[in-house]
């Protein structure tokens, strides 16, 4: 067939062009943004959200754990019962443990017996977000470091990266260890990492975080860090510490002393 004479070079050129043409649409689909869902109540970006913990007002040293109980109840945080598999979003530690870089200093007497509430700091420069290989954790515009339990593969890289030990892993199925399941919020399943989420689901309904609402001593204040808000007034007027702020994570939980 004399008109079938095509040399190898031309054949390869045509094949390459053909493949390129076939790949055009999928490539375009990949780089084009999906049509934005009609954003009716996405998170308002009114600045960034912070928490202020007043160590002088907090009564955790006297045994009060209202905030912890509220948080863990509302979010179905299980009570596994052993330290090894502990899951905690909010808990209290000693002053030395919360601020280990102040180790060995002569701590002012009122603070020596204080228990300090610790939680995820929702850092402005979060190392956990940087290291997540699936973007199962990311930082929202309003500052909250979010978790997507559907995407998490349980590699625990974020747990290694967190300088505050804020993250817990589900070493087993948590459901048998939840006393009463709160139906309005999902539980998690084995194999994913979880942490405090600044009650983003309550914020979406205009409520305060569960811990802030539960605190009867007024030790917890939450809100946008911008002039005029109560939390801004507190932080800008009182001496405050942030945990390990020399590491460059820019944590957003401020401890008022």
């Amino acid at each position, binding site marked *: 067939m004399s008109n079938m004479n095509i040399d190898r070079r031309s054949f390869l050129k045509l094949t390459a062009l053909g493949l390129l043409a076939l790949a055009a649409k999928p490539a375009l689909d990949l780089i084009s943004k999906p049509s934005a869902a009609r954003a009716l109540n996405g998170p308002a970006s009114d600045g960034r959200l912070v928490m202020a913990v007043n160590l002088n007002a907090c009564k955790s040293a006297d045994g009060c754990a209202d905030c912890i109980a509220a948080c863990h109840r509302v979010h179905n945080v299980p009570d596994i019962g052993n330290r090894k598999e502990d899951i905690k979003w909010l808990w209290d*530690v000693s002053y030395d443990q919360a601020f280990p870089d102040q180790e060995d200093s002569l701590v002012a007497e009122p603070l020596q017996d204080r228990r300090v509430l610790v939680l995820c700091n929702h850092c402005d420069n979060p190392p956990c977000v940087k290291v997540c290989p*699936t973007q199962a954790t990311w930082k929202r515009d309003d500052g909250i470091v979010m978790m997507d339990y559907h995407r998490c593969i349980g590699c625990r890289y974020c747990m290694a990266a967190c300088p505050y030990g804020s993250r817990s892993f*589900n070493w087993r199925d948590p459901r048998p260890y939840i006393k009463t399941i709160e139906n309005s919020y999902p539980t998690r399943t084995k194999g994913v990492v979880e942490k405090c989420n600044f009650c983003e689901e309550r914020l979406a309904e205009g409520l305060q975080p569960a811990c802030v609402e539960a605190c009867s001593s007024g030790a917890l204040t939450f809100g946008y860090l911008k002039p005029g808000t109560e939390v801004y007034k507190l932080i800008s007027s009182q001496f405050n510490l942030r945990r390990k702020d020399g590491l460059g994570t820019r944590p957003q939980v401020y401890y008022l002393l």
Partner: protein
Amino acid sequence: MIENILKGGKKYWLLISGLLLFMAAGLAAYLQQWDIGLAVTGLSRDISWGLYIANFTFFVGVAASAVMLVIPYYLHNTKEFRRILILGEFMAVAACLVAITFILVDLGQPARVFNIILYPSPGSIIFWDVVVLTVYLLLNIVMGWVALDAEYKEVAPPAWLKPLAIVSIVWAISIHTVTAFIYAGLAARLFWLTALLAPRFLASAFASGPALLILLALAMKKWGGFDPGNQALDSVAKIVAYAIIVTVFFLILEVFTVFYSQAPEAMAHFQYLLFGLDNHYNLVPWTWASILLACTAIVMLVIPSSRKNHGTLALACAAVFIAIWIDKGLGLVIPGFIPSPLGEISEYTPTLIEILITMGVWAMGGLVLTLLFKVVLGVRQGKQ
């Protein structure tokens, strides 16, 4: 070529059966872990990485070590490495598979592992590690198989093999550097936050990998009738010697920095490792055993007569391999978490299930290695 894996004597099939047995035990243990979750391991909220990730780190190093043979042969035309090179490349393949499998068994939701590919995260070092390890695995499979095939057909290997080998040299360095970056970029863990981590990884890889290779070559000589050549063995042994000296030197550098500066948070991890901390001593005997083995091996490898004697060479290489497994595996991952970010100290002991799974993965690597080496033997014996 591949039909050689089906032809073997009694010892061969005994080895295969033994490896399959360990793999079966590992699988049974893994099914427990799949069912219940990682609670069956000794891992905890404070020490969230353990035996699996320790082994992953170590075997990435062993995989990278093939470069120590590729460089002399392809870049400097050191002909004496010709016969041993294929063993290095196939050992890299087995080690790569072992490393990747250790990551998979460590995941909490392994069925979702493809999320790493579906949602690429260039900011995450684990993403890059997956990329470089996969490419390296393919590189070594291609390089090894094509070279062996050419040898089988008694023709020169294709010309594109050499540029591919050059790429694999750079790539081998990159896989272990990226693995070091997983640890070295974390400001949270002062035990790992050092620029020296990548050089430490590379030095210990270039000691442990070739040490294993020497042991495998000696085993092939004894049981497979394969002679790598005394020149080649001695050259590789010298590489191991230099590398283990550098490894120990780097450790001394770390110890100095931490203990001279007395910076408490960095020092605490080394204190735990070397002397114990607050009545917790789990790793102390392992650490000193590792140091002792490494120093003994240095002496044995530096003295020419003991290096050239295959009996003492084998002992020295086994000592190097074990010493570095302890140092880079247990001695790297676990002290990173002790003390915890809140200064708390808990300890980690792997459970039986964890150990069975680990041995199962080792056995899988051993099986891949055995099958590949059997093909090499079959091809080579056909020539002799």
